[in-house]
């Protein structure tokens, strides 16, 4: 017996007060839900062509759903904010990456090509793998990273960059897009992450 009504000296009206409270509580919670704008904070730590997709896809989609979104780019993730994107991908050290040809006869396009690891270290291999991946993406109607990034900017996704990373790698801030909202550290990111409904580390 720990309701407020049960503590009243007369002990009367318990049920009425409980019912009133439950109703009010539900009403208030519904009002709160209706006025609540969902929010999401992402940490983008990878700078390869494949791993550039998850943060920009999630951020742009969340913005389309009307959420407030901010993305904190740190370490290699910072390369996703460069004015001139030169993102690469390679199956080296990434054995799950399927290698298929995006051109040629249909039967050949469905064949998975197994490439010996030693061959992957030959000069030009990474550029070729990146070229094939970009071609595959184009042919499947997948947006390129520049497009997704500008859609994020357009939709007011807050792009935040890690100050420590530029210092560490001796980067020049002029290499980055001017839409970066802030150059900060962990202590600035965490309070916004604390209040967000969704937090993801990518």
């Amino acid at each position, binding site marked *: 017996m720990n309701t407020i009504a049960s503590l009243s000296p007369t002990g009367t009206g318990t049920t009425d007060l409980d019912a009133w409270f439950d109703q009010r509580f539900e009403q208030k919670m519904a009002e709160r839900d209706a006025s609540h704008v969902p929010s999401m904070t992402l940490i983008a730590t990878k700078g390869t062509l494949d791993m550039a997709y998850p943060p920009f896809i999630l951020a742009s*989609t969340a913005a*389309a759903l*009307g959420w407030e979104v901010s993305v904190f780019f740190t370490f290699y993730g910072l390369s996703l904010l460069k004015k001139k994107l030169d993102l690469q991908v390679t199956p080296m050290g990434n054995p799950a990456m399927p290698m298929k040809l995006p051109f040629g006869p249909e039967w050949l396009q469905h064949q998975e090509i197994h490439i010996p690891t030693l061959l992957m270290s030959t000069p030009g291999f990474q550029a070729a793998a990146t070229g094939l991946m970009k071609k595959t993406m184009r042919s499947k*109607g997948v947006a390129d990273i520049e497009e997704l990034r500008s859609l994020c900017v357009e939709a007011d996704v807050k792009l935040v960059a890690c100050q420590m990373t530029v210092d560490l790698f001796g980067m020049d801030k002029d290499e980055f897009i001017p839409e970066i909202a802030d150059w900060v550290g962990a202590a600035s990111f965490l309070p916004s992450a604390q209040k967000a409904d969704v937090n993801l580390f990518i």
Partner: protein
Amino acid sequence: MNHTLDARNLNCPLPILRTRKALNELASGDRLTVLATDPATAKDIDSFCRQTGNTLVDSKQLGDHHSFVIRKG
């Protein structure tokens, strides 16, 4: 007013992003027909409408693509 968005041959998340953009231009009560070939769009567009206060009035497969009708909330 009825409007049409052709999002065929586009892949996730573009059909949703284009739908959002198209809806922004419309008035409440207007209808938007979205054509899409990405199979995930059928579920994604339903979820999108629920989140954004729009109504998915119709959803059907037409040959090689899907057709959705959304009423702007």
